[in-house]
């Protein structure tokens, strides 16, 4: 699948508008995970508005591709992309984290259509993605499975159990995207518990690996296309990203891992995102 310059531009603008809605929802709630929602926004926009097959009117459509947000704390990003994709009214985004809302602090598949499985406890999404990939293979169906993992999340042992399983069963209908923003709650990943060399690790586990700039929409799209063509093994796309990407106030700041923007910060962020020229 090729992409035109116009489509690429539209994707970039989509990601910019998603960032606006993510921050509005977070600020309205007063809590939530800002940094990791923004760092993964470009890859998730590309998945939903370029790559994946789905029908928002029929969230359980058998022919759909599956998206698993293994780093469940980026829930505001998942909710925003689902709302933009038409799974529910974007007006509902303002209910984020409120009592009775379908938009729980971490994704809850029981209540929100479009969420394939509840996540939040780290390290579990890739195993679930493996199960889905195996189900599609049993059905001889062409559906593809995508999972987004955090880099701090790679510290969980279960991730590497799942990495072995995916390679063992040659799950070439599976693609994992690693949001390598370099920060976790307690500080830089490299200081808390180093996970590098990430690409070597995945390669040595038997995966095809692409190492890209996770904010370069052209690179994201190209890597997703290349993953389609990989046969006999799963693909990991290591996306080098910046935590809080898109708003200079939040970029690279560990403080915004689990904090929402204040009203004042939101105003500054909105100005920057509204004025952002999509390059």
């Amino acid at each position, binding site marked *: 699948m090729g992409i035109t310059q116009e489509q690429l531009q539209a994707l970039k603008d989509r990601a910019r508008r998603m960032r606006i809605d993510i921050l509005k929802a977070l600020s309205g709630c007063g809590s939530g995970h800002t940094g990791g929602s923004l760092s993964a926004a470009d890859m998730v926009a590309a998945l939903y508005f370029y790559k994946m097959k789905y029908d928002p009117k029929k969230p359980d459509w058998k022919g759909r591709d599956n998206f698993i947000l293994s780093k469940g704390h980026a829930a505001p990003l998942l909710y925003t992309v689902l709302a933009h994709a038409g799974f529910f009214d974007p007006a509902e985004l303002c209910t984020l984290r409120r009592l009775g809302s379908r938009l729980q602090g971490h994704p809850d598949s029981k209540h929100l259509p479009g969420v394939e499985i509840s996540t939040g406890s780290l390290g579990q999404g890739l195993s679930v993605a493996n199960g889905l990939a195996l*189900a*599609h293979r049993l059905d001889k169906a062409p559906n593809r499975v995508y999972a987004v993992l955090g880099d701090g999340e790679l510290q969980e*042992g279960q991730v590497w159990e799942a990495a072995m399983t995916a390679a063992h069963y040659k799950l070439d209908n599976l693609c994992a995207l690693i949001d390598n923003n370099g920060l976790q709650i307690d500080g830089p990943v490299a200081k808390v518990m180093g996970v590098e060399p990430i690409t070597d690790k995945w390669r040595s586990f038997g995966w095809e690996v692409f190492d890209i700039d996770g904010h370069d929409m052209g690179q994201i799209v190209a890597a997703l296309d290349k993953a389609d063509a990989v046969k006999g093994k799963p693909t990991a796309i290591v996306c080098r990203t910046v935590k809080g990407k898109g708003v200079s106030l939040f970029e690279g700041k560990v403080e915004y891992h689990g904090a929402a923007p204040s009203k004042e910060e939101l105003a500054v962020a909105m100005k920057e995102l509204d004025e952002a020229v999509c390059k």
Partner: protein
Amino acid sequence: MTLNVATRDAYGDALVNLGKKRNDVVVLDADLSGSTKTSKFAKAFPERFFNIGIAEQDMMGTAAGLAVGGKLPFASTFAVFATGRAWEQIRQSICYPNLNVKIVASHAGVTVGEDGGSHQSVEDIAVMRVLPHMTVIVPADGVETTQAIEAVAEHKGPCYVRTGRNKVPTLFGPDYAFKIGKAHVFHEGKDAAIIAAGIMTAEALKARDILKAEGIDAGVINMSTIKPLDTGAVLEAARRCGAIVTAEEHSIIGGLGGAVAEALSESAPAPLVRVGIKDVFGSSGDCDGLMKHYGLSAGDIAAAVREVIKKKKR
């Protein structure tokens, strides 16, 4: 009583039958398929069997994904690893999203024998029972295991079925009809009622015979579904007999004894004595020796009945 079939063997055969009837059934194991008896399914349906290796956490997550993908997964390993090692995966990826995953564990309780305390799960019922959406079943014999496997396949939602390593007597005839959440009353009794599950139901029936010779009429109720508990059967027995003994090959904390205590204390307070593992770990030994050492024999249940009747008369 003659020993006929281990509940794990009945599970293995039931899985194969289920696999013939339904092609959405898939089975996962964590390198113990020869012991859990999922190897029978693996042989019959190799394309629908997934060995995940010694990685129980990944196995539970993979089972969850297969369920999301429309399959009916059965995940098996030893009870201690299934429920202990992978507890939080069962919580987050199976129970919280209420997925249709069946966890059938083998080698539960101290009758694992010589392998010792590290491998003897005496906490699994407690840690599964506490999870919302989870159904917990402890079959007493091969007949009940076969029917329980068919029942959990029809039931929508996560289920935990506990099986054992050793051959057990067959207690149920072909006319038995297992139903999730329904106790089976073998004997109503008058002086006290023994509520038992798993291999302890056979011991309870033996205890009844011991007590009968002493002129004590002890009821025997097989409570194979620990959750949802057949509260009606518990309260009825309490009102009828005025005293209850529970018997399980599990810690007396949080399992069948715990569940019955909760039901009794809220609705029909009656003296209760819990037969089970007394807040200790298991150890190596032969099965009969271990049953006696941990106070799980028919004689121990009979003693508990005498004790609870004394409490009643106070």
